[in-house]
């Protein structure tokens, strides 16, 4: 009983034995199990994609099945979570509050990710729920909850204040409402749209807006309203996907370049210079052509390649200014590794301008992707995609303006919403503007 663990609160010095109660060990077992499952599933998703793309290049398989190509990002994220779960196992047993809160986050995120991978939902979610239940057993909860709440208090307060500021600005609220609206439309497209995305009703071609087709029909009898609703799925997914990948890529490269400096930094900066000298649209066009096939997937790859340098620049600048600060020195003096300092200490402190930039870029990326699709680098004719619908309508502009009008409005509204929110967040996060 001489061995004691300091929990940070004087009155709560608890013996080690008390920590090693069965529920915590059980929790650890579940976490290890989940992490193994995550490593296997995530690894399969990522490796499967790599193998299939190599086979695709070699011409062994003609087309990649949807269940392989669709889940790469999920796979990467699951791998990351699995790693976290593996790392916190032992910390749980010695009663580290941080480990408990990370268990909470990791399990919630796991559930969210695996909800998006329907094939695996059944296997992963029950253990996650079980882990959450154990986490909130009175005995276990006592170990961390009070401290967790204490930790969260300033953040909650900060968040509540931010929400209050958001509520005060009608433009931001409007932007958020539009984004939420479009997201809901995209998620429930099947229930909202009266017709299918590529359904044609030949006898109804060229109809002006009327009760049966509220926004009219196009030249082959596609219902404009339904196609815009289905298009929301395509356009939102692709723009978010592009920005997320470019953001992660740019952050990693920029952070490394700013932190290590020297030759690496010089090289990265020259490369970004070159990318900046290209107009984005032109480079993306050339990349799509180089990838061989005009399709949405290639547009998104091309835009990921063109977009990362701006994030790299942004993160590099931030890292340069954070690098010399005291907390970095402190982390280094307790023996944290470079990658740990970079990813867990510096990058979280550079995240605010990144969020603003990324939010506004979703609008910009949407515009560029739709533009590429408009000049003919996108999906094949007939696919419900906003840019393509506009280009379809331009041949009939003079007799049926509605074919182009409504998809364009959808693009404008979505991009505007993201810009409004980005603009608003910047004002809210800017401490100079905040004080007043």
């Amino acid at each position: 009983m001489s061995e004691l663990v300091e929990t940070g609160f004087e009155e709560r010095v608890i013996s080690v034995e008390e920590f090693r109660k069965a529920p915590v060990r059980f929790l650890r077992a579940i976490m290890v199990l989940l992490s193994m499952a995550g490593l296997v599933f995530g690894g399969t998703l990522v490796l499967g994609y790599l193998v299939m793309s190599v086979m695709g290049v070699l011409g062994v398989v003609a087309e990649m099945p949807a269940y392989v190509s669709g889940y790469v990002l999920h796979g990467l994220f699951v791998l990351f979570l699995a790693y976290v779960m593996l790392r916190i196992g032992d910390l749980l047993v010695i009663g580290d509050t941080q480990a408990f809160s990370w268990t909470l986050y990791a399990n919630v995120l796991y559930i969210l990710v695996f909800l998006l991978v329907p094939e695996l939902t059944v296997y992963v979610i029950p253990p996650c729920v079980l882990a959450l239940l154990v986490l909130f057993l009175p005995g276990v909860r006592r170990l961390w909850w009070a401290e967790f709440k204490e930790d969260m208090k300033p953040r909650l307060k900060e968040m509540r204040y931010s929400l209050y500021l958001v509520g005060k600005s009608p433009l931001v609220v409007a932007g958020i409402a539009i984004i939420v609206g479009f997201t809901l439309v995209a998620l429930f497209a099947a229930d909202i749209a009266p017709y299918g995305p590529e359904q044609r009703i030949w006898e109804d071609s060229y109809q002006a807006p009327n009760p049966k087709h509220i926004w009219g029909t196009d030249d082959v009898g596609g219902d404009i309203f339904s196609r815009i609703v289905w298009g929301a799925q395509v356009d939102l997914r692709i723009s978010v996907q592009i920005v997320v990948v470019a953001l992660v890529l740019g952050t990693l490269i920029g952070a490394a370049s700013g932190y290590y400096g020297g030759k690496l930094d010089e090289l990265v900066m020259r490369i970004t210079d070159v990318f900046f000298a290209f107009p984005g649209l032109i480079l993306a066009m050339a990349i799509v052509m180089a990838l061989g096939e005009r399709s949405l997937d290639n547009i998104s790859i091309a835009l990921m390649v063109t977009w990362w340098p701006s994030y790299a620049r942004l993160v590099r600048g931030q890292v340069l200014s954070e690098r010399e600060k005291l907390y970095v020195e402190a982390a280094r003096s307790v023996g944290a590794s470079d990658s740990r300092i970079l990813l867990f200490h510096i990058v979280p402190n550079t995240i605010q301008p990144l969020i603003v930039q990324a939010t506004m870029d979703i609008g910009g990326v949407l515009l560029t992707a739709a533009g590429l699709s408009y000049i003919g680098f996108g999906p094949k004719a007939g696919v419900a995609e906003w840019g393509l619908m506009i280009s379809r309508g331009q041949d009939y502009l003079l007799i049926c303006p509605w074919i182009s009008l409504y998809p364009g409005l959808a693009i404008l509204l979505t991009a505007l919403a993201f810009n409004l929110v980005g603009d608003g967040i910047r004002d809210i996060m800017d401490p100079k503007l905040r004080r007043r």
Partner: protein
Amino acid sequence: MKLRDFIIRRILLAIPVVFGVLTITWFLSYIVGDPVVMYITERTPDSAIPGIKKAHGLDQPLPVQYFMYISNLLRGDWGMSMSSARDMPVLEVIADKFPATIELAMVSMVFAVMLGIPLGIVSATRKDKPVDHFTRVFSLAGVSMPIFWFGLMLKYVLYFQLYRAGLPHFPSGDRLNGRVFDYEKDYRVTGFVLFDAIVYHQNLELFADGLMHLVLPGFCLGYLTLAIITRMMRSSMLEVLREDYITLAKSKGLSERVVIYKHALRNAMIPTVTVIGLAFGGLMSGAVLTETIYNWPGLGRWAVRAILNSDIAAINGFTLLVALIFVTANLIVDLVYGVLDPRIRFG
């Protein structure tokens, strides 16, 4: 450091950038298609292809081809473009189409600067008044506007609806009214319609017609830049107006006008000038879309056609040119800095 040394240093720094652009486009275009198609037609017999490859050095290893490509570029041989009416050397096509694009870009730039800077100033000095709200929404809409859709809608309303109503209307595309003026044959001197009309022909009708044709595409292309400039001007003006020296100037009893235009504007211009320089590259991107919509015989439309036809030499030529424009614009921006802010030493 002297100005001359500074310029030389900046040009030297720009070389690796241009070089990188070259390398990337060459690499990309090599994936796009076999370069031998540049030199053959449908009627070329298969047996002749090895000979053609040999004649143009296409049977050499890639690094050798790369150096040949660079040395050809330096000697002014940018290859042949086959996506114009007839096969023409890329440099000639560029010389032919460049003025049209630059004229369009200049007009939209002038429009954006002339409108954007005053709007930004007004918005900043009347912060949170109705004018400010209107300007903010106007400029946010500009940033969010799909340029190709905007072009179509402008055309629909200001050309077609006015035309149908029998009112005076804007033309729907092209540089000049083809039925009245044959520019290429009769009037072309420098390639800039407005410039030629005034300086060489003193033909006011030609000038007016050219100007009318520039309004819609110019506005369409310039709106994004206008929005960016307005936003930048507003925020930098707001920042400057908070400075102590502005308070001092006001407390000396100087009029609002003098404070804003003499004291604040000059400093507020510095970030705006950067944005203007960067926006010039964006204009080239936008020109691709605008020219497609308005049937503008410029570089953008040519580039789209070149890419869709795998016209490798044309793609390379166009990207290189754009990179050069961009680098030059940045250099000019840096020089203007020095004029605006004498504290900035070139170094």
